[in-house]
């Protein structure tokens, strides 16, 4: 379980975010641009300063202003994937993948190289330089590199934002495979409802540097449920909405696609 309580004033912007995420599965930080999603990730990773607060991964405290704990970024064992893959341009794909792996403590080696390469389908890319990879391939290598650093938490900062439509779906499918194959908590930042519904187990909604809601992906809205007209009566049309979580009395906002 990850527990976060961050307070940080950055010029006119005030970040005051607190939430808990489950020990495995994907927690999505959802909100518009400027909501403080990336600043929250940076604070968790240990690259941005925190004025006061607390960040813990299970029983491991990474930051605590009260007891003056501040584990440096490289010792936090947190993998970080950005929207631009930020691969090392002078290293081949395999050396990029092994960079963090070589530096992880021997005792922590539980994520296997061949397993990651197989799940991400990047075996044929290993001897290549990173310059001639496609956007989707670069992002898959970046995912593998972060995963192989044997992290206890994976941060994904809008990993699909720099990709075009087709590539988005491709990389999203790989992230879903990582989620299924490796028991690793992930914090995933996005402002796309489609990505929330595709990947999230738990959603933390941010706006203006505050948590405004937490819950299941349903709180984001925009779910495509494929309602069906099953009849008419004197009040209008009867819809059947196949949505298990909805309790009687819930208000539904419907958007008609066609």
């Amino acid at each position, binding site marked *: 379980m990850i527990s976060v309580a961050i307070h940080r004033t950055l010029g006119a912007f005030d970040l005051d975010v607190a939430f808990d995420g489950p020990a495995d599965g994907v927690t999505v930080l959802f909100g518009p641009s400027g909501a403080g999603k990336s600043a929250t990730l940076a604070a968790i990773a240990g690259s941005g300063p925190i004025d006061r607060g607390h960040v813990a991964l299970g029983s491991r405290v990474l930051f605590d202003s009260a007891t003056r704990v501040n584990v440096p970024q490289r010792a936090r064992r947190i993998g970080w994937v*950005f929207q631009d893959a930020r691969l090392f341009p002078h290293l081949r794909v395999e050396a990029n993948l092994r960079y963090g792996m070589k530096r992880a403590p021997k005792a922590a080696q539980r994520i296997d190289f061949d397993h990651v390469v197989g799940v991400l389908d990047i075996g044929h890319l290993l001897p290549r330089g990173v310059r001639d990879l496609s956007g989707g391939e670069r992002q898959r290598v970046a995912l593998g590199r972060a995963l192989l650093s044997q992290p206890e938490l994976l941060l994904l900062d809008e990993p699909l934002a720099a990709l075009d439509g087709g590539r988005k779906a491709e990389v999203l499918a790989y992230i879903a495979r990582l989620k299924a194959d490796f028991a690793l908590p992930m914090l995933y930042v996005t402002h796309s409802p489609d990505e929330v519904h595709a990947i999230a187990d738990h959603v933390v909604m941010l706006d203006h540097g505050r948590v405004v809601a937490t819950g299941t992906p349903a709180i984001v809205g925009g779910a495509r449920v494929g309602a069906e007209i099953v009849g008419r009566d004197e009040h209008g049309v009867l819809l059947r909405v196949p949505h298990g979580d909805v309790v009687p009395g819930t208000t539904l906002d419907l958007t008609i696609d066609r």
Partner: protein
Amino acid sequence: MLTATEWEVLALSVSIAGRAVLFALPLALITGWVMARTRFPGRTLLDAVLHSSLFLPPVVVGLVLILLFGNDGPIGEMLARFGIRLIFTANGAALAAGVMAFPLMLRACRQAIEAVDPRIEAVADSLGAGFWDRTFSITLPLAAPGLIAAAVIGFAAALGEFGAVITFAANIPGETQTLALAIYAALQQPGGEAVALRLAGISFGVAIVALLSSEALLAYGRRRSGQ
């Protein structure tokens, strides 16, 4: 093709310029990194001091070196206790040439470090690489083409340095007489123009060889760093 004396002058010039780069390049790299990556009060002033030999007449630099490294200078006296003498020696000539070439190497090193994306270094940090680790595995390899260029510029400047070398190390054949100084000495002799012209031709040849090999090195460095 070349006479024994000409070979000696050529070898000495290359050796002195090489030694100048050898001691000045590491210093230029460290200060270049400090200038590129840190902010502190007095930084602009330090930058001006580091570049001062670029704006001073070389003879003034030679004079300062005499005052510091001469037999009565504070550093010269200290070195003498270890049996090291710089004034009027080949190492002294390399010191003078290196000091003159230093600002050019500093600028090139600084630009090479500035060209490395700090976000790439931040990724290395998040993957568990500490400062020295990521400096040697990420920053220096990515800066390599620029650092090679810095070494070449420094070598060229040291090779041609005249004023500071002759002031500090004098013009001693076989010890401190580089190509530039040998040309000057030849011109002082009646009828020495022919000798001077041959030496000038050798200088030209050295320049061409140095330039071509630097291009080859740069191309290799760019391939290696994937740029």
